[in-house]
């Protein structure tokens, strides 16, 4: 008998149920094989340990009333053993479905709020305007200045020197050579009396802004030439996109990115270029030949620059 055979018969050998010839072979093998002998001793200890274990007796209340005796509550230990996988499928599946639906609905309902938060973050960019002023159409009144003052970012003396101002005399300009003041007695000046002498410090230019200037004239082509010379004199490079203005249905449009520092000068010069309103439209809304407003740009604008849009329309 070898070790393999002995192990196959170990159970009967432990119980003494082996036939005599096989028992003698097993005894002989154990006398020769130390491993099997140790294993037999270990098996014997294990079997003796099992047989000597105390037996639990049935509790007396259950013995007296097996079906009606109160049973101990499972309590916390039952809850500790509760696992999701142990729940029956007809409970688990609906609960999982409800959880999934609630997650989907919460994401869908949170999306507008996330977008609103993102837009507010955009509006709070350094030097940015209050988003309530977005696309706020003004005619150069004080309302713009009553907004939270945003510092003129990017305006430096060096930049101002790079774009020297020059004198421009536009036809129809009532005032004299003082370009710092707008038309004195021109009722068509859309700015209030305070704005006729608008100077650069009165308006503040910030980042990510669009400055729109709207001029009405009876000769848009001539005004176009004046504006091109104006921009060139202010130092806008000729290679700037759309400097020369493009003709669009309804008028001529200039759309370009310029340094922030020249915006006040552009405003002042354009105000000077604006022709007086025709007599028949005096003191009417159509008498405003020059209007301007600024708004927050939704598209990114390079720092220290602003987007300039000049619109020339036919009276």
């Amino acid at each position, binding site marked *: 008998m070898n070790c393999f055979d002995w192990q196959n018969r170990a159970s*009967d050998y432990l119980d003494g149920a082996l036939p005599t010839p096989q028992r003698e072979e097993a005894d002989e093998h154990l006398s020769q094989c130390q491993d099997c002998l140790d294993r037999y001793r270990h098996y014997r200890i*294990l079997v003796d340990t*099992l047989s000597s*274990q105390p037996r*639990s007796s049935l509790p007396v209340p*259950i013995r007296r009333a097996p079906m009606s005796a109160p049973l101990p509550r499972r309590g916390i*230990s039952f809850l500790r*053993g509760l696992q999701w996988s142990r729940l029956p499928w007809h409970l688990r599946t609906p609960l999982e479905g409800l959880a999934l639906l609630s997650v989907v609905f919460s994401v869908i309902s949170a999306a507008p709020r996330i977008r609103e938060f993102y837009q507010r973050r955009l509006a709070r960019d350094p030097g940015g305007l209050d988003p309530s002023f977005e696309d706020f159409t003004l005619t150069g009144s004080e309302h713009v200045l009553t907004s939270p003052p945003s510092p003129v970012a990017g305006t430096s003396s060096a930049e101002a020197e790079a774009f020297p101002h020059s004198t421009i005399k536009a036809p129809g300009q009532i005032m004299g050579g003082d370009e710092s003041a707008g038309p004195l007695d021109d009722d068509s000046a859309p700015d209030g009396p305070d704005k006729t002498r608008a100077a650069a410090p009165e308006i503040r230019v910030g980042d990510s802004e669009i400055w729109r200037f709207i001029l009405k004239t009876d000769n848009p082509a001539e005004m176009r030439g004046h504006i091109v010379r104006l921009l060139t004199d202010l130092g806008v490079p000729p290679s700037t996109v759309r400097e020369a203005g493009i003709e669009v249905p309804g008028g001529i449009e200039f759309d370009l990115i310029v340094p922030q520092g020249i915006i006040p000068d552009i405003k002042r010069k354009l105000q000077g270029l604006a022709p007086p309103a025709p007599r028949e439209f005096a003191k009417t809304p159509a008498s405003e030949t020059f209007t301007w407003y600024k708004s927050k740009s939704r598209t990114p604008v390079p720092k220290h620059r602003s987007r300039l849009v000049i619109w020339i329309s036919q009276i």
Partner: protein
Amino acid sequence: MNFSRLFPNSTASESIEPIVRQYGDLLFDLCQSVLWSSREAQHAFRSLLKGLQRSRGARGFQDYERACILRFACDQLRGRDARHPRRRSASEQLELDSALGVPQRLGRFEGYFQRLPLEDQLLLLLRDKYGISFAEIAVILGTPEGSLKVRRQQALRALEDWIWGIRS
């Protein structure tokens, strides 16, 4: 309609009293050895009696009564283990294996015994603790005798490896 459930003192309930009287301790000890706690064993014992009450009916088990009752009990325990498997946690396993000497490990024999699969536990309990013959165990567990002997040897070897260490 089964009126026995409406009247607990009916004949059907009286039919399980002999079972409780004769095999109550054996069944309760079997439940407690497998389920680890007296509280769970009592609950299992109650559900076992209910099952016996339903299955026995008016006629009792004439032959092989103990085998049939134990077979029913083992089926109930298998179902319970399938629904709520009881396993030692990782920390408990580490504590078992951290015992330094063989005597200490023998002192934690119950923990090693509960590591065995349920079928092996039932086999060792029925054979070595209750002294039931392999022929009767074959009826109880529904396994041939030869397979039972081999499984017993394998279970003992697994316990030996855990307690005395694995040898080549």
